């Protein structure tokens, strides 16, 4: 018997980690990505579990998949677009199955709080023919995770658990139990199952189809697919976080809540349709459920994405607007009185130095994803493209097919974590295809964007162990790049000169910045000597403001001032203050 040990308030991500821990998970791997990151960060705190950051999602899934084939209870987690990267192992692991168990978590980002697209990853479950679970809150996230790991083993199948941002980051009450310790299952070589050559895979495809039939039976009677009786006028079919929103708007309706939504429980829907007049299908993302429901040719009136939007979250206010015609009241505040507070680069962010040079040299920039994507905004406006991780380097190669864009007037910029994730092969492409062009690697030695995770450039693992630190210069040289240089990006002249030199090189050149992220422990621990502006000397030219450092603002007099609490003393502002003015100086005492 598993002992219950109390209640706690956990986020969906923490609840997934807790559920996996309680289910006896042995191994977990992931590449960070909002809103999934905290799953591995939480799992890493349990000493019974081996939790690791992988260089990218494909690697994470392959390691987790290998662990499952080897007999471990295992999981991998990623944000929605991460599953695109991992799609190759996903589809084939579906054939190979597991010896232990494999849970694949995809955290979708309805509303695009921090993503570049709003794809609905439920399609992956159908395409890869894997069972799909959709928890509505933290409590279900915990219990479903445990259950998923059990059926993964029982049905010899990877299982997909899909959350969306509000489930991942929303917090709710859960019941905690103790961990069930399960030894790693014995490994046996099995050529026919684990070597996917055509002769084996043809047989395995049949197995997959048979397995789907059994899983469909399970979905039809599953405790996760429940009918909640209510008024017979309206029947709501829903899944995931949308269930909560629907309950706010239609508290008395009859519900079919689908927690196990693929293979789709057709019979369950038929049974439900007899209980209600009108059916409203409420789901975030695409018409995944709706597609199946409409196939049944029911006589009920059906409302779904013919009225509700495909875009954004199905928040109560959205449901009221589209289904009840209750328009949300217009905001009553004069927009001049609401201040823009877009995310900004941090005070003293080392990315500022290089983007100042890029902006002043008026370059076209094939950009990438990370904190530095913020340089696409004012005051730098220094990014032309940002598509997906790694697409800076390869994107530059493509852009240069237009003679207007050359290695001299265009560069690619990419962060260290992103370079390791998927930039290396693009750089190989550049060298292999004899291009001329410059790649800037913004090596702040951390994965900053997602909250400062360790990565292969940092020398530490997720669980805090020392490890080797990649030598980016040696790596780049080994690829065949002939011009490689590291610059101190807090020195603006050195940075700007090096960038110019790199652009003039006749071949592939790689410029690597060296200052660590201002939020890393090493920087936070270091003594700080902030700078100040001598108001009597300041001529209000705005040069320091144009750096875009949030520690600098325009005072009432129009002259600049530096907030000594925020300033980390990088000194970039003193370098842009005109030589004849020199109004910015270091305060010679520690803040």
């Amino acid at each position: 018997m598993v002992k219950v040990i109390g209640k706690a308030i956990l986020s969906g991500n923490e609840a997934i980690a807790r559920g996996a821990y309680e289910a006896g998970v042995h191994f977990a791997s992931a590449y960070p990505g909002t809103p999934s990151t905290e799953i591995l960060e939480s799992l890493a705190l349990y000493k019974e579990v081996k939790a690791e950051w992988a260089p990218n999602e494909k690697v994470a899934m392959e390691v987790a998949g290998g662990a499952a084939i080897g007999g471990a209870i295992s999981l991998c987690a990623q944000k929605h677009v991460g599953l695109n990267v991992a799609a190759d192992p996903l589809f084939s692991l579906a054939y190979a199955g597991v010896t232990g168990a494999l849970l694949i978590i995809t955290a979708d980002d309805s509303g695009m709080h921090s993503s570049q697209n709003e794809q609905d990853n439920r399609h992956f479950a159908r395409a890869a023919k894997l069972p799909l679970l959709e928890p509505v809150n933290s409590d279900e996230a915990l219990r479903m995770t445990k259950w998923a790991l059990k059926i993964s083993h029982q049905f010899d199948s990877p299982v997909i658990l899909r959350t969306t941002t509000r489930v991942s980051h929303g917090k709710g009450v859960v019941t905690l139990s103790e961990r069930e310790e399960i030894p790693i299952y014995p490994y046996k070589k099995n050529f026919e199952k684990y070597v996917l050559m055509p002769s084996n895979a043809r047989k395995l495809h049949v197995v997959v189809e048979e397995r789907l039939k059994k899983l469909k039976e399970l979905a039809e009677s599953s405790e996760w697919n429940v009918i909640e009786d209510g008024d017979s006028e309206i029947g709501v079919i829903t899944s995931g976080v949308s269930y909560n929103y629907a309950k706010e708007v239609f508290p008395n309706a009859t519900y079919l809540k689908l927690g196990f939504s693929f293979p789709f429980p057709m019979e369950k829907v038929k049974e439900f349709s007899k209980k209600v007049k009108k059916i409203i299908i409420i789901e975030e993302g695409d018409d995944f459920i709706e597609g199946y429901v409409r196939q049944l040719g029911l006589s009920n009136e059906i409302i779904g994405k013919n009225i509700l939007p495909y875009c954004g979250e199905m928040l109560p206010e959205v449901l009221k607007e589209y289904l009840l015609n209750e328009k949300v009241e217009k905001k009553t505040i004069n927009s001049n009185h609401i201040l823009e507070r877009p995310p900004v680069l941090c005070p003293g962010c080392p990315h500022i130095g290089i983007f100042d040079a890029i902006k002043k040299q008026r370059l076209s920039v094939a950009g990438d994803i990370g904190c530095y994507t913020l340089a696409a905004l004012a005051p730098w406006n220094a990014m032309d493209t940002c598509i997906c991780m790694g697409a800076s380097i390869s994107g530059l190669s493509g852009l240069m097919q237009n003679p207007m864009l050359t290695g001299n007037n265009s560069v690619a910029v990419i962060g260290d974590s992103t370079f390791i994730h998927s930039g290396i092969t693009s750089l190989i492409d550049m060298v292999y295809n004899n291009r001329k062009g410059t790649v800037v690697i913004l090596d702040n030695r951390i994965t900053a964007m997602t909250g400062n995770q360790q990565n292969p450039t940092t020398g530490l693992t997720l669980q805090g162990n020392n490890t080797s630190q990649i030598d980016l210069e040696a790596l780049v040289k080994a690829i065949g790049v002939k011009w490689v240089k590291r610059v101190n990006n807090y020195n603006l002249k050195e940075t700007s000169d090096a960038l110019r030199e790199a652009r003039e090189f006749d071949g592939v050149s790689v410029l690597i910045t060296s200052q660590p992220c201002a939020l890393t422990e090493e920087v936070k621990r270091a003594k700080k000597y902030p700078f100040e502006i001598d108001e009597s000397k300041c001529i209000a030219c705005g040069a320091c403001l144009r750096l875009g450092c949030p520690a600098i603002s325009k005072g009432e007099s129009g002259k600049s001032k530096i907030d000594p609490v925020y300033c980390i003393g990088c000194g970039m502002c003193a370098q842009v203050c005109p030589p004849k003015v020199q109004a910015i100086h270091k305060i010679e005492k520690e803040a």
Partner: protein
Amino acid sequence: MKTTSILFAGIGGQGIIKASSILATACLNSGFDVKQSEVHGMAQRGGSVVSFVRFGEKVYSPTVEQKTADIILSFEKSETLRWIDYLKSDGFLLINDYEIRPTSLNYTGKTYPERSTVESYLKEIEYKFVNSTEEALKLGDVRVFNTILLGVIAKKIESISIESFHKAIELSVPSKTIQMNLKAFDLGLSL
């Protein structure tokens, strides 16, 4: 029992998430179902941050709709105006009398709103300004300004006992700072 909705607004780094999780824990301590939600990620980079706490017998949505918040706690003066439409007509608004000027002022040409500008929108609303930095300095630790603010709204949340708040604080802050945070909370209660 009706669900109660509380909205915390402010700027990344002000301790909004911490304050809302203390409240959520207090709700659990008092035997309620509770949902809390905020969005991580881009918002952390100096942007505006909002966090919702909803409690009651059974709570579904983790988000708060416009015109439905029972209480708004704004940690930063100008942020009040971004969220004020979320307050219901008989709700209570607590404003921390504190300014954080965004870099956008450097290029949008907007000016930071005066207190009178903020108040011009509050004619029919029950509200209170508290200078929590000043109050925290009286206690000798500026960092507990957010716990003071939590104390001020705790007075308005009658269904959650003071004891539940105290217990939640003890569970949520580093052990060295428990006494200071309890003092800060009680100071808030008295304001």
